[in-house]
């Protein structure tokens, strides 16, 4: 994997979702697993794919594309589950494929443009350019925390 070291305080894990590129702070990532069949939870929101067995604990898995409002698509063997931990809560995020780990300085991150009402406002906390591709940096707290309030 290529390294893009600059003045480097942030390391990001980048991954693909429906032809778009997203990234997460690598410090919140616990592990990356291949796709396994999930056990669906009845009456759960559609982006909740269900639960899987993570070495003896029950891990809820969320389809990140559906969570972000991207069109649903078929799962392939290349799909992976990124296991993240936020506020002691473990969640699996289903993504299309993991691409790279990049190190970025604060300067490389730009705030996202003011969002228009009705779109996902706070989920993306920054944008960055990498080899002329735009990469969206996700705010994990919003992705996961919104979920909690929806379920409650």
């Amino acid at each position, binding site marked *: 994997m290529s390294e893009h070291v600059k003045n480097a305080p942030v390391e990001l894990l980048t991954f693909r979702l429906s032809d778009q590129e997203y990234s997460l702070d690598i410090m919140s990532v616990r592990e990356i697993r291949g796709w*396994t*069949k999930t*056990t*669906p*939870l*009845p*009456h*759960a*929101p559609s982006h*909740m794919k*269900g*639960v*899987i*067995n993570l070495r*003896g*604990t*029950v*891990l*809820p898995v969320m389809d990140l594309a559906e969570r972000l409002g991207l069109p649903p698509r078929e799962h392939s063997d290349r799909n992976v589950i990124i296991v993240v931990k936020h506020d002691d*809560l*473990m*969640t699996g995020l289903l993504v299309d494929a993991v691409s790279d780990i990049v190190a970025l300085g604060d300067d490389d991150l730009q705030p996202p443009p003011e969002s228009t009402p009705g779109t996902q406002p706070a989920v993306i906390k920054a944008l960055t350019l990498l080899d002329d591709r735009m990469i969206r940096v996700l705010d994990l707290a919003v992705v*996961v925390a919104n*979920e*909690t309030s929806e*379920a409650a």
Partner: protein
Amino acid sequence: MTTPDPMAEIRASFFIECEELLEALQDGLEQLADDASDIETINVVFRAVHSIKGGAGAFGLEALVRFAHRYETVMDAVRSGQIAPDDAMIKLFFRCADHLSDLVRGSRDETELPTAVGEALLGELDSYLGGTPAEETEEDIDFQPMGLSLDLPGINSAPTANTLQVTFSPQTELYATGNEPFKLLGNLAALGACTITLDASALPSLEALEPENCYLSWTAELESAADAAEVASIFEFVDGLCALDISGGAAPGFPDLPPLDDIPLGAELDDVEAEAPVAKAEAPSAAPAQPPTPAGAMADPSGTGKAAPSAAKSVVRVDLDRIERLVNLVGELVINQAMLSQSLEQAGLSPHSDAMNGLEEFQRLTRDIQDSVMMIRAQPVKSLFQRMSRIVREASAAVGKDVVLSPEGETTEVDKTVIERLADPLTHMIRNAVDHGLEDTETRRAAGKSAKGTVRLTAAHRSGRVVIEVSDDGGGINRPKVQQIAIDKGLIPADAPLSDTEIDNLLFLPGFSTASEVSDLSGRGVGMDVVRTAIQALGGRITIASEPGIGTTFSISLPLTLAVLDGMVVKVAGETLVLPLNLVVETLTIDETNIDHVRPGLNVVRVRGSFVPLSDLGVVLGYRPHLEDYIDRVVLLIALEDGNRAALVVDEIDDQRQVVIKGLDESFYRAPGIAAATILGDGQIALILDPSDIISQAQSHEHSAITARKEIAV
């Protein structure tokens, strides 16, 4: 966590011991209530209080020492036959025991101690002693040297100073048990003018010296008002670990004590020093006499109970976390074993091959290990029941009713976590029984019952579950009143025709309270609905049976453990699900002869002449739409809490097996009807269903579907 402080650890273990002692005390008092004349029981009770006092003294818990001391003084009087115990006294003893446990807990948690209650109780205690308490305070000195202030007015009761010669030769064991001669001598010196000389004559040459042996002894000349017994009491905790000789001065007090008590101690000391028994002559109530009984060994915190080591049950204290870890690991083992057997089966091995035989043995072992581990966590419900007997005492005193609790099946064992979480609901139910269940004394007399109300609390194992019942012999549920209240509160429509059972179950509705006026006992805004929720959270069920004029019985049925479940593994719409096996009363297959179509969306299945409504599990869980045809599907008959049955349609039954329960609490989505999850042999997660919840959900769907249709029709 801060760094472990050895003193804090000792203190913690003292409080754990206190809990045990309090339990022994409670037990003893209950025996006394049955037969007050049994001297051995009185001894046990006395020793329990005394041991608490001793330990408390060592930690400087003055309030505790003071109360325990006066309590013990009265008991001592009973023990020596000065006072004959009567009912009122036993009751007072019970209340004192309650207060003592409050003090212990208060001291442990360092909260404020309820001194006012204590003073009142002490007043009552003293009234039994007549004029004697002043003299008895002298004993406080026993514990005072352990670090309390020294200016208690104890010494003046024996005003004449005399000279005592005290020879103190500690044995090696004294050091081994963590005692400190310096402190003991310091305590001695605190009694009066004291000259202590060291006798090192037994000290061998350096080559012969065993570093762990003790060769030193001390001689002290003490000028003090204290008598020999008092001096001996300083050495009470090292009794049997040293040779002690006290001579000169006044003869030991309390000559009326039976010399028999000395025999076990004397015998033990004979080989050490022949004269010791004289010195040992029973420090007043302080040396707890230690007759050679197993109880003596258990009740004594200082470790001097060596007199009867063989009979004490050997117990290991283990941190609960470690047990939890073991339970989890065994859970993993069970899952792994299931995975292994599944893959071996798939490998197509012959069932008679060595591998398969070995696997069978492995399965049996796994099951045994699991059962044994679960047994570690199992505890008798006794401690819980004892707490309840206190609740009954307090509750009956508060409402002025004469109530006796009759516990049964105290040795029934239940998972520790279940016991802990049962305390609150049970407390509430007991209070209810005393407050609402039982009539007042006049009504009882008028009804020709005994004036004393009885609350029965029973526990028993019944077909893999624990059944706990709280029943009273009161007037039963006043059904017209209950129904009227429910109507008044708008909980049910005024014209609703309800069966007796349905009316009884109104008690479980949120916001229901039957007390005509809110007493300070029950009716604190927590109703039976809270109780039911708590029980259900434990995987249990609660039912009511009531008969007018005879009484009411609440019966709680609980799983034995929260960790494993005997489950029926079924398949619905391609998903694997687990149902608690004990709720499945029957299975059958649907054919043309036993299914009937009532109206769209409602089918019933005929079971020996009765109709049971069908719910399709796949539909209820949203896995699939309604099926056109249910022929050849499998039906599970489920027993419901209200005694009715419901039928759940599944595609096939896979297996019956023990599954390890994995909580879903931590995952952030909680589906209705889903109790927990488990991991199957193939590593997949299967959801464990709560059938009652599923069925009530199915019925409410049904209802909303009907009302929706009606609205459309209108």
